């Protein structure tokens, strides 16, 4: 007995752990998208979203105005603090320089406490003349620079002098030294830890300057009529197929079941031609009609299955009392079928909201008519392929509404799925 009980707990631990693992695997991709959509775009390119809670090392470019310049021979010097010199850097709040440099090529060439600078090397040519060339190096702040004996091409170095150099301390204090007068503000690069930067800037940009708001409204415009209209048509048909006796009923039900699996692809070319011929063309009206047609088999099938299961007594006693079919349908069957209507409404809503194929074919291809899926697939993935923050925000805008509907009405969705699969 003890052994059996022991087995059971170990089995349940294994079960719990594997379910946790599965759920994590399922969630991680979506969490990545969600987190990335709120991150600053520079931080996204520096560290992965899984490290987004930690400070990010970001390179800043600072150009301090030369103030209080002193002169020593040909060398001009001024000093100050890099964090107070730039609004952008001081806004980040953190006061720790982890590396610095004087070129954008290598913004973290030296560590705080060192001096980094550009030397002018005087090298002798084989023909006896001399030449000058740049040489970048770092040296201890209290020390002196050293130059190599020969340059890259193997020419001997005769002499050198400092062209420009900067000493930066970890707290941002710096001293700039330059050969000759300091005409304009020098450029210093520092790498400093920036605290995690979360915000709505990606959403703001995608909604204001990228026309995603327009696409959102278009999606909504496609979805709502395409959800409501088929329900009504299907409900009447489902009632006839469930509760009215007539020849050919069995055949029609079989036909609806068969049409459930007809691939949409077949309908695209002939219907677009038809729409063009009757003057609808590529338009919202066209896509509403198309979605209505494509959604009907499932709608009729789901609603009929549900209506058949309604208690026969209620319907027959209503008929005995003199109610017509029309009254039975509107007063009794329709209200009782609410759960099935809700199931189908959710299906159709999710399907039309998420659809790309039908929208690409039946809507005009100009940018004013793009729905969100088309906007993301045809526009953003191309033009903003590397802009992950914008892409993430756009994707999240497009999946937010379905997710809300999903979590709010999951009960009906599950019920519909169970009724919709042919047993």
């Amino acid at each position, binding site marked *: 007995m003890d052994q059996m009980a022991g087995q059971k707990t170990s089995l*349940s631990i294994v*079960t719990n752990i594997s*379910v946790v693992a599965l*759920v994590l695997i*399922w969630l991680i*991709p*979506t969490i*990545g*998208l969600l987190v*990335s959509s709120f991150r600053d775009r520079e931080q996204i390119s*520096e*560290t992965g979203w899984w490290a987004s809670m930690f400070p990010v090392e970001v390179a800043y470019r600072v150009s301090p105005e030369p103030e209080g310049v002193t002169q020593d021979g040909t060398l001009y010097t001024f000093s100050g603090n890099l964090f107070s010199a730039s609004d952008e850097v001081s806004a980040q709040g953190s006061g720790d320089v982890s590396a610095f440099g004087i070129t954008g090529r290598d913004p973290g060439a030296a560590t705080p406490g060192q001096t980094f600078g550009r030397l002018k090397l005087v090298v002798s040519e084989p023909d006896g003349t001399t030449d000058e060339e740049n040489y970048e190096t770092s040296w201890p702040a209290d020390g002196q620079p050293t130059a190599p004996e020969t340059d890259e091409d193997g020419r001997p170095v005769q002499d050198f002098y400092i062209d420009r150099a900067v000493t930066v301390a970890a707290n941002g204090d710096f001293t700039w030294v330059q050969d000759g007068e300091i005409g304009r503000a020098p450029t210093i690069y520092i790498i400093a830890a920036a605290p995690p930067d979360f915000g709505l800037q990606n959403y703001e940009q995608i909604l204001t300057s990228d026309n995603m708001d327009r696409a959102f*409204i278009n999606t909504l*415009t496609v979805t*709502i*009529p395409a959800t409501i209209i088929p329900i*009504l*048509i*299907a409900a*009447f*048909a489902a009632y*006839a197929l469930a509760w*009215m*006796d007539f020849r050919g009923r069995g055949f029609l039900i079989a036909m*609806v*079941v068969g049409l*459930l*699996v*007809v*691939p949409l*692809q*077949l309908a695209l*070319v*002939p*219907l677009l*031609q*038809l729409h063009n011929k009757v003057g609808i063309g590529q338009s919202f009206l066209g896509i*509403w009609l198309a979605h209505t*047609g494509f959604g*009907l*088999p499932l709608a009729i099938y789901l609603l009929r299955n549900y209506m058949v299961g309604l208690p026969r007594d209620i319907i027959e006693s209503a008929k005995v009392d003199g109610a017509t*079919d*029309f009254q039975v*349908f509107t007063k009794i069957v329709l209200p009782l079928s609410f759960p099935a209507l809700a199931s189908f409404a959710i299906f159709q809503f*999710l399907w039309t909201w*998420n659809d*790309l194929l039908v929208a*690409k074919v039946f809507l005009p291809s100009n940018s004013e008519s793009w729905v969100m*899926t088309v906007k*993301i697939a045809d526009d953003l*993935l191309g033009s903003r392929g590397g802009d992950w923050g914008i*892409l993430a925000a756009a*994707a999240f805008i497009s999946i937010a509404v*379905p*997710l809300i*509907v999903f979590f709010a009405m999951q009960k009906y969705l599950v019920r519909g*799925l*169970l009724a919709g*699969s*042919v047993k």
Partner: protein
Amino acid sequence: MSPILQGLITIIIGVGGCVGYFFASNWVLDKVIFPPRTDDHGRNINRATMVRPWLFLFPAMFALGLYLVYPVVGSFWRSLFNRSGEEFIGLGNYTTMFAEEGFRTAVFNNILWAIFVPAAATFLGLLVAQLTDKLKWGNIAKSLIFMPMAISFVGASLIWKFVYANDPDIGIINAVRDVLGADPIDPLQIPFWNNFFLMVILVWIQTGFAMVILSAALRGIPEETIEAAIIDGANPFQIFFKIKVPQIMGTIVVVWTTITILVLKVFDIVYAMTGGNFDTEILPSYMMDYMFRDDGRATAVAFVIMIIVLPVMVWNIRQARKEMN
């Protein structure tokens, strides 16, 4: 006119028109054509009863006929003509297509999809359904695994770009490789296996569907059969494979075929992830390459898909008829 206003008007016209049609046609039938108050009012009521189903059915049948039945014929007919649609070329579109390397790749990949995706989604769905069955927080776990069902294929593709990206600061796979010291790779450009990386996205979406249905089926198994097995000394694995799975085999087949049908329709994932490059084309995306450019070819591809789906359609119809009798 703004699309919103247009949409509102359409809802009003559509819904109002439907209600109006049903109401008016019934009224006309009862009051004008077959009024029950004349001499032969019994016969008139019977006649009205015979006609009424067709009033209820007419809009739906019309829409179904126009949007789903006509295209089967219309597509096939169009596929017999050349690109411009003026010249009848018989099965010319089909023969050139079958001879083409790209089409054969698409068919081959589509077969891979049609095997792997339903198998993996059904298996994982069954696994999750069984594991969460007796779990206290099973419903939360299920609802989280079910969640991708609500996400569009395009959205899901974008989500998975954050997994597959070849920048180790964006893509998780390459981040892991980076930690292990391996060079970053682009999973979507690895020949042959890139197909499977795309399939994973659809498996991720469809597992929830399989799970919901199979979970309900597992709950429907009579307790006595399981109790009897426990008394006979069966271990949990034997109970699962020898008692439970055989009893829900019918449902497993339904889930499997439903996902198979879906696989043959989904073009969004390939379209958004690779655009059909790197030998990842499947039939639906192959068709979209020709849509708007060569309708003859596009309809021929669509018809090939239809023929692949046909056996499932016949099977579904037979099941439905069996159920009704």
